[in-house]
């Protein structure tokens, strides 16, 4: 019996879909059987980020309305033999095509076969959000270091805490720019965590390569050298229960002089 984790944020454009795609891929690389569910009916794009757009035949609404079985609607990602599947959202209906009870039933069915069911939640707190949360056991809240995103994250955490079937939500802070934080132009991680007072699951630095990779339909975790990739893999390991320390945010100074300075400052 697997776990269903909803990935949500309240505000749009903070990186829910990218996070879902990358965490799902990272968990699949770590050998887990993963199913990604896109609940953004009418505005689907998880399939695009994963590069699976062309293979969609059936979608979530077809399953709910009984036109096909869940198994038949799932799109397999061939890069990770039998480990990563996607249940795409419908593009032709809207959020009201599905209700929370139907979602719950379907997620329950998926949990029987997969270790992790990651649910990509649409922005907002209306029907789409309620559908996405209905079947979830756990929740991950994604935010960026902007006041507006943190405000919405706070709202969504309040709503998630009221859901009795969901464990206390955990936090991912996305798109951190270390130079802006250093200059005091951006909220820093401690400030956000203190404000929201929930467990921090990980932080991801802002990286152009994430956008490039998404546009190519290859999640960034497939690139082993990118900082964002390492951050996503670390988060995946933390989801599995491993204890992985947070790396320091500052860029390591390189060169002999700084090394000498470091030695002296240590004393």
């Amino acid at each position, binding site marked *: 019996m697997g776990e269903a984790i909803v990935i949500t944020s309240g505000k749009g454009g903070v990186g829910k879909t990218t996070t879902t795609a990358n965490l799902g891929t990272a968990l699949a690389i770590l050998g887990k059987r993963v199913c990604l569910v896109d609940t953004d009916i009418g505005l689907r794009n998880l399939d695009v980020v994963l590069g699976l757009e062309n293979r969609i035949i059936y979608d979530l609404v077809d399953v709910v309305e009984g036109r096909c079985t869940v198994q038949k609607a799932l799109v397999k990602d061939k890069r990770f033999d039998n480990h990563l599947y996607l249940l795409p959202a419908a593009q032709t209906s809207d959020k009201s095509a599905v209700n929370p009870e139907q979602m719950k039933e379907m997620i329950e069915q998926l949990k029987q076969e997969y270790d992790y069911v990651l649910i990509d939640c649409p922005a907002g707190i209306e029907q789409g959000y309620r559908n996405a949360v209905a079947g979830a056991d756990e929740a991950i809240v994604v935010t960026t270091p902007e006041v507006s995103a943190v*405000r*919405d994250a*706070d*709202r969504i*955490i*309040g*709503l998630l*805490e009221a859901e009795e079937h969901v464990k206390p939500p955990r936090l991912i802070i996305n798109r951190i720019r270390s130079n802006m934080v250093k200059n005091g132009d951006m909220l820093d991680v401690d400030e956000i965590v203190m*404000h*929201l*007072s929930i467990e921090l699951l990980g932080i991801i630095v802002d990286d152009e390569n994430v956008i490039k990779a998404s546009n190519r339909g290859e999640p960034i975790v497939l690139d082993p050298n990118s900082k964002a990739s390492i951050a996503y893999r670390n988060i995946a390991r933390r989801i599995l229960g491993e204890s992985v320390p947070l790396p320091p945010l500052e860029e390591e100074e390189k060169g002999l002089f700084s090394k000498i300075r470091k030695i002296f400052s240590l004393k």
Partner: protein
Amino acid sequence: MNVVAKQKQQYVTIKGTKDGLTLYLDDRCSYDDLMKEIEERLVKRSSVAANSPLVSVHLKVGNRYLTPAQEEELRALIRRSKNLVVDSIESNVISKAEAIEWVQKTEIVTVSRIVRSGQVLHVEGDLLLLGDVNPGGTVIAGGNIFILGALRGIAHAGYAGNKEAIIAASVMKPMQLRIGDVMNRAPDYKTDERNEMECAYINEHNQIVVDRLQLLMHLRPNLTRLERRM
């Protein structure tokens, strides 16, 4: 007490004071007997002229509980006696509902949670919050608000019109403060982070001001209380 007890059981004792008349009503007889006697002694025997000045009457009903309808009936009955009007009705007992309401209004409600954006925490008495109020969150109390955490949202103390209420917080960074019907909002410029407990109250100019917590003992000495205020 019973001056004319030999002739008849007396349920109403009348005493004249400088504030008017005080009527001690027996609390063991039936309500109907009481009404009958008041009618006989006050209404029927009233011999004053119709244009004499009004005399206020204070009723002390002892351990008898009167419903609002019965109180109204009593007032109407006594009013029929031309120059008497009921000023107050005092009883030693209150109904359960009134007692619960009274407790709710005077108790300190302790809550341990974070009031997040979009959430509203509403209590009838004083609020003791062990946690933060985040921006966009609201706390409302009939009495005072004490926050052992950061107040970054909206706090409304004394919402039913109590202007003596205060708001105290370990970190006072509110979006808005409201006490009674007076409102104040945070300045648009950023204030420096002071790590000092502060309190908000209404000053003599009917404005909400934020000041050091230590000043409260002079401003609101009534906050100190060993027994609950009535």
